[in-house]
């Protein structure tokens, strides 16, 4: 296992200490339980935004704490959802009297832990709403699954809801907006290599030198199918076709196109992919009016990518463009 770490058991703790020290101007890190909080939390009169999930997806979620995005993030162990006491502590720390929104990725663990946390917070008289993000078209949404996973759209929802909360919109409005983003966002991912969970020490799955895994999640779990390596333009088609067909995205739609690295894929490849994606979209009359290209929701050092499309209207576009000032996403501030 080749990693720039010390003891595998200390990765999350030391990573948090690093974040705390590097971004002391923006965030405060609480330990026992672990929570990353906006330095100026709670912001009075503002809906508090809390998210969280397993570690190993950096910059999500801790890197998105700050003005215009999250008020707090709860980092779990690597790829393991955090616990209710973290979420409760986060919720209490960011409650500015206007209620708290939990943005939850749809995994059984995340959902159950956030549910317990919301119950506990309500016991303490904090108004809490939860919205579950489930945008991964690789999972058949049916009675026979735990539902679609929450992936790339989570980042976009956190940004957009963060902007709305800064405008002092109500908890009901911000939650409604979060559901709207989720309803209009679709994602799918793939891997060229597995990642290695530090505590496990070896790759979660094995791929041959000419194989790739299509429809993966973000926890190193196996995907929908294994295929022979293909050129970027075919990979884009494999990912973008189910995305576009699912919503469906139609000619004339204006979208935010998000090309994400799973961690080990470098930027130049993301631009090659985006070049193929824009052609794919152009052929269908879909216009990418905003882009986000880089490693934003990762799986440790996994090589691979995911594509997310979010259908934009004027409201979402304006909220996307609004200032944001976090370690991982920053503009206008």
């Amino acid at each position, binding site marked *: 296992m080749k990693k720039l770490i010390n003891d595998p058991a200390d990765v999350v703790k030391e990573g948090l200490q690093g974040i705390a020290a590097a971004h002391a101007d923006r965030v405060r890190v609480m330990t026992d339980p672990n929570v990353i909080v906006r330095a100026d939390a709670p912001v009075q009169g503002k809906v508090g935004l809390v998210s969280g999930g397993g570690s190993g997806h950096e910059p999500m979620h801790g890197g998105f704490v700050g003005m215009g995005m999250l008020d707090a993030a709860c980092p779990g162990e690597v790829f393991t*959802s955090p*616990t209710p006491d973290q979420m409760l502590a986060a919720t209490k720390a960011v409650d500015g009297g206007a209620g708290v929104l939990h943005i939850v990725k749809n995994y*059984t663990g995340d959902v*159950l832990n956030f549910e*317990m946390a919301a119950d506990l917070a309500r016991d303490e008289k904090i108004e809490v709403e939860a919205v579950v993000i489930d945008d991964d078209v690789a999972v058949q949404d049916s009675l026979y699954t735990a539902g679609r*996973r929450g992936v790339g759209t989570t980042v976009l929802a956190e940004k957009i809801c963060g902007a709305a909360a800064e405008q002092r919109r109500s908890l009901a409005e911000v939650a409604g907006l979060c559901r709207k983003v989720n309803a209009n966002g679709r994602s799918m991912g793939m891997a060229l290599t597995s990642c290695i969970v530090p505590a*496990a020490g070896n790759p979660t799955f094995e791929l041959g030198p000419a194989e790739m895994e299509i429809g993966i999640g973000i926890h190193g779990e196996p995907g929908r199918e294994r295929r022979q390596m293909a050129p970027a333009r075919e990979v884009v088609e494999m990912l973008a076709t189910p995305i576009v067909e699912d919503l469906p995205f139609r000619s004339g739609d204006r979208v935010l196109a998000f090309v994400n690295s799973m961690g080990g894929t470098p930027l130049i490849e993301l631009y090659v992919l985006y070049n193929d994606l824009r052609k794919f979209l152009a052929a269908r009359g879909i216009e990418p009016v905003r882009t986000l290209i880089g490693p934003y929701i990762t799986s440790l050092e996994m090589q691979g990518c995911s594509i997310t499309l979010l259908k934009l209207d004027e409201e979402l576009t304006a909220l996307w463009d609004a200032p944001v000032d976090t370690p991982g996403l920053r503009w206008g501030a």
Partner: protein
Amino acid sequence: MPISDSQISDWIRAFAAAVAENKKYLTELDSAIGDADHGINMSRGMQAVLAKLDARQAADIGDLLKTVGMTLVSTVGGAGGPLYGTLFLQMGTSAAGKPELSDDEWAAALAAGVAGVQRRGKAEPGDKTMIDALVPAVEAVKSALAEGSALDEALRRSAEAAREGMTATIPLVARKGRASYLGERSANHQDPGATSSWLLLQAAADTLAAKDSQQR
């Protein structure tokens, strides 16, 4: 002869030992159809539980079980944390204020715990989850006691039912949890959660009944 507070402690310690011993095995089962952490998570949680038990002041069994539940909830994470946490929390509620448990009170507590897991996770038997081991275990202990079996026999049958339920998950296609994303690819693998649940019931048979017969 009722089940004592110290026997419940022994049961928890025996479960912790079984989880530690099977940490790699549980994680391997979870890498086939999940995310390769079930053993790591449960073992982290049970180590924290052991630390709590060692530091614990004497109190009633309800209190003991709630401490276990709370500790699991706040240290395990993932699906396993809230589910096992709920199991022990609900058992604790059922056993609240009791310094010892009769056979029927044990069965009632276990049933309450498993019902809590079902309420929280919404899984039915056959969904390929820990429920497939837990529900038969509750039924077995209840019907054994109803038939007049002694506690050791009832616990043995309960653990045996859990083992069968665990094995029966192998051919199933998962409909809950992370394994459900795999669809048909989830078949032919044993569910990790059902496996840890069997370890829990087996630990009960080994500790509660063993002492019970010694003390008889």
